[in-house]
């Protein structure tokens, strides 16, 4: 398979759709721009900045936890760091980068559209994010919200009221952003697909984003309702969540988890989509079980709406509910398993290229299996009763969120960086980055399972001295993770400026985004591409597989 550099001259045969291509200037990225590619980059870069901020908070937390006493941060400040770390990582890093960043950049390119269905709405959705982050940082002037990313009452009603209010406003902003973004994705995928792309040729990333968007549309407004009630309880003297006045605290938990369990799928489904793109390209094999993977995304989307009470097994939940939600939780793990097997089977016997993107994808596979198995143990009520609110849960969700989501984002960045910037990343730095991240993740989060099983509660600044050694191990891991960001950042900046020229399709990939130039011109293609083969036809008979990108050659 040779690298095809210059096929553009054969593709442009007739009058182009738009005015002559002009490139955006650097300052366009700081404005209200409605090009989906600019917005995608805005999402990715902004989210990465928040990742660094949230990461610094994590380091502070881990430093505090090197000793059993509270010495670096006093307990209130510790809680504020812990709360905002979680909130930023979830709402301002993983969700906006995985959905907003990759979704916006790739969906129009993958379905053969010139932009999203509603470009202006898209820009509005992005611009709701920076103020949300600013509100969270501002809340530190008022002590910082301290009730965890879950903001359960009564804690959220009695601690740092102003800060908690700012927190609520921030979450409502990102929630609105996510709803507006999802409207755009659903309509773009359903309505702007280029006609020659058949449904069964739709890249799996698009199916994943479709499922994600539906989930966001159905669950986010319920969280918004819960937060509005909380806002009123804090500021306007209502008592929705105050049992002493006829309210109900557990009600909040239902509203919250009705959103936030689906939210974990918001954070992993797009990543699953990225996996399904990266693995076939770098294993040079058709994806195993295209339909199974596509349908499993939709199944997760539906079943994922009916498992939320597994976060509430210890909230006075009646036994029938525990039983029901244990069963539904075990069921929702099945489609996830289907995907894992699909990817492993794709790797099996492939000509694997160990690029940075592929390393992170394979790393993700191994990590996610650990996190997923943890999840199944937790989903089983009898076991969860003992480890709920311990470090075991912290271990679980960091395996799926760091080992899953963050690895996937890294993988996606390495994979699409050549498309986005027109330049290759440095593989050596990529490998160093991978090695540090892989080791750091295990070192930080594996021991936490042990801590949890021994009974160390989560969300505490002080702990029993018997846990000291293992906590110190976790802290060392956290420093390794912090260090891992350095080669990554250097790689990104250096490669963007000086990396080797990538050409249109450096990986010889078959999805539509690789049929245009790198970076793509402003409305993506001069002439919309015609799809002549499936997105994953690697290694097939050249007549059937467009390894030379002949899909952009107009039919004559």
């Amino acid at each position: 398979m040779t690298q095809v550099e210059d096929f553009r001259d054969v593709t442009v045969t007739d009058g182009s759709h738009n005015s002559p291509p002009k490139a955006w200037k650097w300052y366009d990225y700081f404005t209200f721009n409605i090009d989906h590619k600019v917005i995608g980059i805005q999402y990715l870069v902004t989210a990465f900045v928040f990742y660094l901020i949230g990461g610094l908070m994590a380091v502070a937390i881990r430093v505090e936890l090197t000793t059993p006493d509270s010495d670096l941060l006093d307990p209130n400040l510790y809680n504020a760091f812990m709360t905002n770390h979680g909130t930023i990582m979830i709402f301002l890093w993983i969700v906006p980068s995985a959905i907003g960043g990759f979704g916006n950049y790739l969906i129009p390119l993958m379905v053969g559209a010139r932009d999203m269905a509603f470009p202006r709405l898209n820009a509005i959705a992005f611009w709701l994010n920076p103020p949300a982050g600013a509100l969270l940082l501002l809340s530190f002037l008022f002590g910082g919200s301290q009730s965890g990313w879950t903001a359960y009452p009564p804690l959220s009603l009695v601690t740092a009221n102003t800060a908690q209010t700012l927190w609520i406003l921030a979450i409502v902003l990102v929630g609105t952003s996510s709803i507006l973004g999802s409207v755009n994705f659903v309509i773009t995928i359903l309505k702007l697909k280029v006609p020659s792309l058949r449904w069964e040729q739709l890249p799996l990333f698009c199916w994943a984003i479709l499922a994600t968007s539906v989930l966001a549309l159905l669950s986010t407004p319920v969280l918004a309702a819960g937060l509005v009630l909380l806002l009123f309880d804090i500021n306007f003297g209502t008592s929705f969540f105050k049992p002493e006045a006829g309210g109900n605290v557990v009600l909040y938990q239902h509203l919250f988890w009705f959103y936030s369990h689906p939210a974990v799928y918001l954070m992993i489904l797009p990543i699953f989509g990225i996996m399904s793109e990266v693995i076939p390209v770098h294993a040079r094999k058709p994806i195993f079980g295209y339909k199974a993977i596509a349908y499993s995304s939709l199944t997760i989307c539906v079943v994922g709406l009916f498992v939320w009470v597994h976060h509430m097994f210890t909230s006075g939940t009646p036994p029938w509910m525990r039983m029901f939600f244990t069963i539904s939780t075990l069921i929702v793990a099945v489609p996830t398993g289907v995907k894992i097997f699909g990817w492993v089977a794709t790797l099996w016997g492939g000509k694997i290229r160990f690029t940075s993107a592929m390393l992170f994808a394979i790393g993700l596979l191994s990590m996610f299996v650990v996190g997923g198995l943890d999840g199944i143990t937790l989903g089983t009520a009898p076991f969860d009763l003992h480890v709920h609110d311990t470090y075991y849960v912290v271990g679980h969700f960091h395996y799926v969120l760091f080992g899953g989501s963050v690895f996937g984002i890294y993988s996606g960045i390495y994979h699409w960086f050549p498309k986005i910037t027109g330049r290759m990343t440095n593989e050596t730095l990529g490998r160093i980055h991978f090695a540090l991240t892989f080791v750091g993740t295990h070192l930080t989060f594996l021991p936490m399972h042990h801590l949890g099983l021994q009974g160390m509660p989560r969300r505490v600044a002080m702990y029993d001295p018997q846990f000291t050694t293992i906590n110190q191990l976790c802290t060392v891991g956290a420093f390794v993770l912090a260090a891992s960001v350095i080669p990554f950042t250097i790689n990104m900046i250096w490669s963007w400026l000086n990396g080797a020229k990538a050409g249109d399709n450096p990986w010889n990939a078959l999805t539509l985004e690789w049929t245009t130039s790198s970076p793509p011109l402003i409305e993506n293609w001069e002439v919309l591409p015609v799809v002549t083969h499936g997105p994953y036809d690697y290694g097939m008979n050249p007549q059937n597989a467009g390894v030379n990108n002949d899909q952009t050659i107009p039919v004559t």
Partner: protein
Amino acid sequence: MQGSTIDPPETTLDEVVPSSTELHEEIHTDLRVWGLLTFLISESLMFGGFFASYLVLRGESAAWPPEGTEVELLLPTLNTIVLVSSSFVIHLGDTAIKKDDVHGLRRWYIVTALMGAVFLAGQVYEYLTLGYGLTTNIFSNCFYLMTGFHGLHVFIGLLLILGVLWRSRRSGHYSISKHVGVEMAEIYWHFVDIIWIVLFTLLYILTIF
């Protein structure tokens, strides 16, 4: 605003780009109605969250509504009739523009706006005369929050209708072939109406039993 980011929106509507083959035709249809419907499904789930919370809180409380916070029935029923009929009126406006009758559109949209304003005024009047406030008890918490939130949506719907009226002054802005804005305002108004029917059932009718 579909498809092209460079061409002005007008020119991209139903635009067909000449190209070498049929497959290269680019047809941009206006998708805003689809977008709005998708958004409203989402929005209705927010009310769904409120409704569910209301039912949970109601189920746990001995007397609902508690002594002294009974709801009024006569005025809200009249108000309901006004709002529900306004949904039919607004549809007349939509039908008019589909016959290229801008005057009909304006007439019926003005009537709808007036009816919406009457509804809001009735709501405010009810608040002023009820004799209990947002914080009185858990029922009044729910009552004011839910009706207030709905009222906010009515207000937004009213602004949309006024927006349509404002734009319809320019002749040719809306026509038989170009009236997406009119349709969107109508759809939103129906949405507000449907939510009210559920709300009215929960907050008023169910309290009689």
